[in-house]
């Protein structure tokens, strides 16, 4: 069974990575769209970012050096990513459910990273993983894991109750929305339950992680631990197939759309890309567009629209 558990976990982790990467590539390789920024844009110069201003506030802006304000961008990004600041500001009721859910996930990721790192260190340099530091290390990932799982379960239940109780949301809720939240709550309850109800002298999380990394098939993984771990990784593999992969989407919605205010001449390679798009041959059927599948976008833009046909005809 141990082999099957290891294989399942590696497979599910690989699916998560592959699908996430594929999704990111899909979005990144979409054509560079027309500008569609939305102010405030936090990487604007500090004297403008505060009121949501842009370089368009300066006369002859194209002759002036664009000021980068990465600190301003970080000042907005960090609280948004860590604390969902936008939701706090615009939908407080949802924040009280969504923040614990997301912050719980961050804590669980932290716990998983600490556990994985400890397992690697204990395999490669066991002398570094023991002693008081090792104890503290263990305490850190256990505390983060337990707190994270509790928050995720509480958040998932809170979100689920809101979806059921709020008539406005119910009409927009699909069966998968319920399934997703139940899946989260169940997976993290299984992980938390396995940890909380573990018998004495059973396989520890660290031993399991070491076994997984070293592919130690002699380790007798308790069934409950196996089920919980596989469920957790199955959840991870499932996420990038759903709208919940907004951890990928959000990079693009912010950096490629809302905050993408670079003038065309200041973005290397963009003019060439646009020149290529202008050779695309659209096939929009309305008469005034004049697209016949042969004319390019550039030709259509330079042409006059076909005029309205006689009364009763179609455009």
């Amino acid at each position, binding site marked *: 069974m141990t082999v099957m558990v290891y294989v399942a976990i590696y497979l599910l982790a690989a699916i998560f990575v592959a699908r996430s990467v594929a999704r990111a590539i899909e979005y990144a390789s979409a054509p560079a769209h027309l500008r*569609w920024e939305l*102010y405030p844009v936090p990487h604007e110069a500090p004297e403008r970012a505060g009121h949501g201003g842009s370089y368009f506030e300066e006369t002859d802006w194209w002759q002036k050096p664009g000021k980068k304000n990465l600190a301003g961008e970080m000042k907005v990004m960090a609280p948004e990513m860590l604390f969902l600041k936008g939701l706090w500001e615009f*939908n407080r009721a949802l924040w009280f459910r969504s923040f614990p859910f997301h912050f719980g996930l961050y804590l669980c990721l932290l716990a998983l990273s600490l556990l994985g790192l400890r397992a690697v260190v204990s395999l490669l340099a066991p002398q570094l993983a023991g002693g008081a530091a090792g104890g503290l290390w263990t305490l850190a990932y256990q505390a983060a894991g337990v707190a994270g799982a509790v928050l995720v379960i509480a958040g998932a239940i809170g979100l689920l109750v809101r979806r059921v109780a709020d008539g406005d949301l119910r009409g927009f*809720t699909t069966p998968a929305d319920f399934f997703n939240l139940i899946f989260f709550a169940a997976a993290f309850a299984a992980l938390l339950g396995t940890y909380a109800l573990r018998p004495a002298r059973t396989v520890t999380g660290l031993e399991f992680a070491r076994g997984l990394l070293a592919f130690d098939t002699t380790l007798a993984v308790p069934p409950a631990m196996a089920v919980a771990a596989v469920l957790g990784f199955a959840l991870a593999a499932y996420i990038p197939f759903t709208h919940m992969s907004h951890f990928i989407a959000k990079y693009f919605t912010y950096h490629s759309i809302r905050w993408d205010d670079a003038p065309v001449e200041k973005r290397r390679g963009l003019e060439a890309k646009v020149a290529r798009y202008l050779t695309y041959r659209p096939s929009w059927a309305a008469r005034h567009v004049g697209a016949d599948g042969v004319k390019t976008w550039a030709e259509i*833009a330079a042409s006059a629209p076909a005029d309205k046909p006689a009364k009763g005809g179609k455009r």
Partner: protein
Amino acid sequence: MSKPVKLSDMSREDREPLTQIENSDLMPLPAPLDDPAKDRAWAALAQQALDKFECGLDNTCAVNVPRPKTKEEENELITKFLSGLQKLFSAENNWTFLQPLILTMEHCARCHTCSDACHIFEASGNNALYRPAFRSEILRRLYFKYVKDGNLLSAFQHGDIKLNWPLIARLIELSYRCNLCRRCAQTCPIGADNGLVAHELRKLFSMEMGIAPKEIHDNGSMLQLKVGSSTGMTPQVVRDNIEFIDEDISEKTGIEVKTPWDVEGADVLLIHNAGEILAWPENPGAFAVVLNAAGITWTLSSEIAAYDSINYGLWYDDAQFARVALKHAEAARKLKVKKIVLGECGHAHKALSVIADRILTGEFNIPRESSLTLLRDIVMSGKLKLDPSRNDFPVTLHDPCNVVRLMGVVEPQREIVRKICPRFREMEPHGVDNYCCGGGSGFAIMSPNNFADWRFHVSGRKKLEQILKAFQDCLEPETPKYVCAPCSNCKGQFRDLLAYYDLWNKHRILYGGLVELIVNAMEDVKPGFIEWEWH
């Protein structure tokens, strides 16, 4: 209020409206419009319109889509819609907005955070039909079902929707119940953009099915490309009109005004919304006074489409948008001007400065700039002798969405009014958090059937609330008040909105542009440039 509208109601076969808005449903207004019983009654849709057009959404009808006469005609329209849907998600047809559209389709969490940000939803009394996510959710379900070849599992994951002609007809109307102000997108925790969805739907209907409101297509972009302006003014007529304005303004200000035309090598090509020339001639006149006084070398262009900065394609059609943008750039290229300056027109600002940025490359990349920044520099430079006491009346400033939230020009106009209007007060909220005037995305020029009732009761209501609140301390008719709106479309909406509620006659609330306030404060100009009379 009628029963809350469900997503599935959009496919209802009957032609009955899904909702009927009553005045008692609407968001309350402050004094003096705080009694819902005294609110203006809605005109009912005429029987002729009901018989002829698809009016099955709410109590109005904006697009006048003819009712198909046969089942075959319905099926043909459905086929066209599906074909357009595929094109909307293809790079060849929609590279312009594909990435943001797909991200919005695939990642909305349906949390309704956007609803509270929407002035239309709030003003309607939280009518579910006007949630920003409502039309998006319909498109999303269609996307997964027909573009991504959804199966049962997809329906489980993304929800299902029945596609039929009534749904399409209602969706056409619903795409014209959004001002495209994108205030909703500003609040989305994911970065999804429901304003974009309304924009993309309009494109599908126009570019594939040939369906768009007459005011913005036939009488808008088509007329502009054909004769030069959506006002119908040909190059000769516009020159005659400007000549008349020059004479009038010279007499009124005591300063000889001459508007230059087609000056090669000028520093500035100024492009007005041509609606100003006909409806508010004091605006282009005031520009001429200020630019001449500041010693700027400037010109207007008499090229087709280049004396009218409007670009209605921005709201509904990429091909029309590109054509007009190119005409504007081409005129500037021919005249070899150093830059284009956009007059007081919000959508023209965004169209030419922001949206067209990536298509105007090479020789067409003539720098574009807002007149607000240029005016700010002139006012702050000390080149004009200004007497703020001439503007000693309450002034509030409207932020056109296209200039502010969508372009980031926030402070220049404020610096001006702070300097020359001693009784300036802000609306709340303002700047990038502003509310749309309710006329955005073409509504200001659309009044078919009883659409004006919807425009004033619903889409303009939040702005009306803001104006009334800004002037709560001086509502008495003895005090003239000025809503400064540096945007032609917004002014059109204010003209109609204030007249609808008789706020000029009863409370002396007037509207106007920014440059008029500057000229009104100029010491070299005869006093009283702003005329306190309704126009």
